[in-house]
């Protein structure tokens, strides 16, 4: 059955329509929008090439300054000095904030950034603003990301001498579906169509698959690799089984921990009350925090190559920091972050059902891969002496995205360099609320995508005519531990004793990772649904509004509940 062509874009803001049936006329580019840096790469016909901006940089800072009428990003504009970025006018770290609400701890930890992040703590999006001529000008993470996407797009168009539409974007493995819609929204604002969203370590896995095919031409023997990717904002782990150019992702794990946390811990170490500096958000305070941030960042970089560092910084408000920090101190104050990294590796190996001795290669990439402690903890957790060599830690993810762009655009290579495939899995389980307040997964974690799964539910009460389908994503046993994706009601259930009507719920994830939830009612003895089936594209909720579920509970209690149909063993 042919897929019908869409004539209008979906109303749901995103642009993730199923790829059109015609072959692509252009090669999709790969974009890595990192928390602190971004980059663009493209398959140039024989290999992956990273594009450079006019200042000959392959890695561009991910920030936008709102100095003048037209905001400008780190791709096109040059800051006169680092402090410029810390004057309140520059917004950065937006990848950490996109799609998060003001009750999220990650948002709270971002309040020490030298611009305005205001939270009300009620589960709505935080107010983010840049200081322009002594006025706080509000913006959104989507807008900031869109601005540098526009700049990256323009840069690529000039160099490739063609319009750019399709992109493969890398994303953190821990992003939930709501956050993905925000990224897609930013792309749509920038006039880009998301061909694929790739969790960062899976992009690295594709690059690894390519490197392995060229090394041993399709021997068919499977190699297990663990990929650890840690940047400024996120830490991701993937376990993949690779053979013959095909990388089968076995499991993914990720968390919003990264260099930013190391930086904040170090800032607190250097100036214990550094957080109180920003309470008034005065211009001088912002400057002080900015100076401290720059000095701390430099110190952390130095500690990657030397064992001690002298921090000497005047914060402009009479505070002067003059301190020697050694690597041991740095590692000690960040013990929690490092422990979390190790636990992600253990979790990912566990989810993949892989033992450390089965792992052939351990790949460490991302900005934090230069930190000696990161390298040593990954090696010790994986029980390996050596890490995989042959990948540029900063370029691996974007290179993988460019490969995926070429593959998904239908390009082939005479030497077989593009006979590649990454088979993705779901990073989180998706399911519905049933059996009281329980989360019942329908598509479990680490399910191969595209996927389609169904489960049968039934009514919780006699003569129950309606039921609520409330869809969540996550790993918690109770719904409130998971992320609400949306909800809808099915009506017209024929009156019957509880447990008799069969309510079939189907979750469908297509190649573009679009999730659809279908629900219909079947009565015993009949093969036709009683009423037209509901088919709802998710997520439908804005801003991760977990409180919608509470409102539903207040309005309906348990009257519209569902229970799972027990397996008959």
């Amino acid at each position: 059955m042919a897929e019908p062509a869409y004539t209008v874009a979906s109303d749901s803001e995103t642009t993730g329509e199923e790829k059109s049936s015609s072959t692509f006329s252009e090669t999709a580019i790969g974009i890595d929008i990192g928390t602190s840096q971004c980059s663009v790469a493209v398959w140039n016909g024989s290999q992956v090439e990273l594009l450079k901006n006019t200042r000959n940089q392959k890695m561009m800072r991910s920030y936008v300054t709102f100095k003048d009428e037209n905001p400008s990003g780190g791709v096109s504009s040059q800051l006169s000095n680092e402090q410029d970025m810390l004057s309140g006018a520059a917004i950065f770290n937006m990848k950490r904030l996109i799609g998060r609400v003001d009750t999220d701890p990650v948002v709270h930890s971002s309040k020490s950034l030298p611009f305005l992040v205001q939270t009300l703590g009620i589960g709505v999006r935080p107010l983010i603003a840049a200081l322009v001529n002594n006025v706080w000008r509000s913006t959104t993470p989507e807008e900031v990301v869109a601005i540098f996407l526009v700049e990256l797009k323009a840069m690529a168009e000039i160099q490739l001498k063609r319009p750019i539409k399709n992109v493969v974007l890398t994303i953190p493995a821990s992003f939930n579906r709501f956050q993905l819609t925000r990224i897609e929204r930013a792309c749509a604002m920038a006039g880009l169509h998301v061909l694929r969203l790739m969790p960062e370590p899976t992009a690295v896995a594709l690059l690894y698959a390519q490197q392995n095919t060229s090394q041993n031409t399709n021997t068919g023997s499977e190699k297990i690799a663990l990929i650890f990717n840690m940047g400024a904002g996120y830490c991701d782990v993937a376990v993949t089984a690779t053979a013959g150019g095909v990388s089968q992702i076995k499991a993914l794990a990720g968390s919003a921990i990264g260099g930013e946390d190391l930086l904040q811990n170090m800032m607190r170490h250097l100036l214990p009350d550094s957080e109180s500096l920003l309470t008034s958000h005065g211009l001088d305070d912002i400057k002080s925090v900015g100076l401290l941030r720059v000095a701390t960042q430099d110190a952390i970089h130095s500690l990657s190559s030397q064992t001690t560092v002298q921090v000497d910084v005047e914060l402009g408000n009479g505070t002067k920091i003059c301190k020697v920090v050694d690597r041991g101190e740095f590692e000690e104050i960040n013990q929690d972050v490092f422990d979390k990294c190790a636990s992600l590796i253990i979790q990912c190996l566990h989810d993949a059902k892989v033992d450390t001795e089965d792992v052939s290669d351990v790949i460490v990439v991302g900005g934090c891969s230069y930190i000696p402690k990161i390298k040593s903890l990954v090696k010790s957790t994986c029980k390996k002496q050596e890490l995989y060599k042959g990948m540029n830690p900063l370029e691996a993810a974007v290179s993988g995205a460019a490969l995926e762009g070429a593959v998904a655009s239908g390009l082939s290579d005479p030497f077989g360099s593009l006979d590649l495939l990454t088979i993705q899995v779901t990073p989180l389980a998706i399911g519905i609320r049933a059996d009281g307040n329980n989360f019942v997964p329908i598509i479990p974690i680490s399910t191969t995508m595209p996927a389609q799964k169904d489960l049968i539910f039934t009514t919780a009460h006699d003569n129950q005519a309606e039921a609520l389908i409330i869809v969540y994503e996550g790993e918690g046993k109770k719904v409130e531990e998971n992320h609400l994706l949306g909800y809808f009601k099915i009506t017209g259930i024929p009156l019957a004793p509880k447990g008799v009507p069969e309510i079939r719920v189907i979750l469908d994830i297509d190649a573009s990772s679009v999730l659809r939830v279908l629900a219909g009612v079947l009565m015993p003895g009949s093969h036709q649904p009683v009423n037209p089936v509901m088919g709802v594209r998710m997520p439908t909720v804005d801003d991760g509004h977990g409180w919608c579920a509470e409102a539903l509970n207040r309005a309906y209690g348990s009257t519209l509940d569902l229970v799972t149909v027990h397996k008959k063993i």
Partner: protein
Amino acid sequence: MNFTSSLNSVALPKPFLSHSHRHHHHHQERKPTFSLITCRSATNYKSSSTYKVKDGENESTNFYKLLSLNPNINTSKDEIKKAYRSMALRYHPDVCHDPSISSTKEFVRLNQAYKTLSDPVLRDEYDYELGLKNCVGTTRVGFKMDNIRNHGAAQNRWRQQVLELKRKSNCRMAQKEGSWASRMRRAHNISNMD
């Protein structure tokens, strides 16, 4: 206005038809759909086994044939993996650019076939249903199920296997025997059946 057409119009899959499908399959559909998959996933919750034999007779839904393999109980795990990979390189939506092929559906079917055939227990059941073997639990190279007795009734067999797997899993914890793949599949099965 029937259910099929309303769903088709929005390009949605048609698993609701799984039951009726078996009867209308051939004249309704130009190509096989993944009705089979829905049936199989439903078997986790409902006892049913007869349909599989029927489907097994159908060329296009035989899991071995989906992977371009000859139905044979001696096909090794590596051969199945290899077949899956090469089929994935043809039908995965990322790499399949033939507009006449509904690659998403093809790939979902491939996954189902692979998932079943790469899992020793599911494959054993499937081989039995296909009539490739006379009873469940006979020895296959690389996978030992010698202690599982065939009680005839599918339900009993199922329970027996769950118990046996749990026992083996406990043993494994102590001994760490077998390949990672067989261990992970066994472990995976147990968590699914619990």
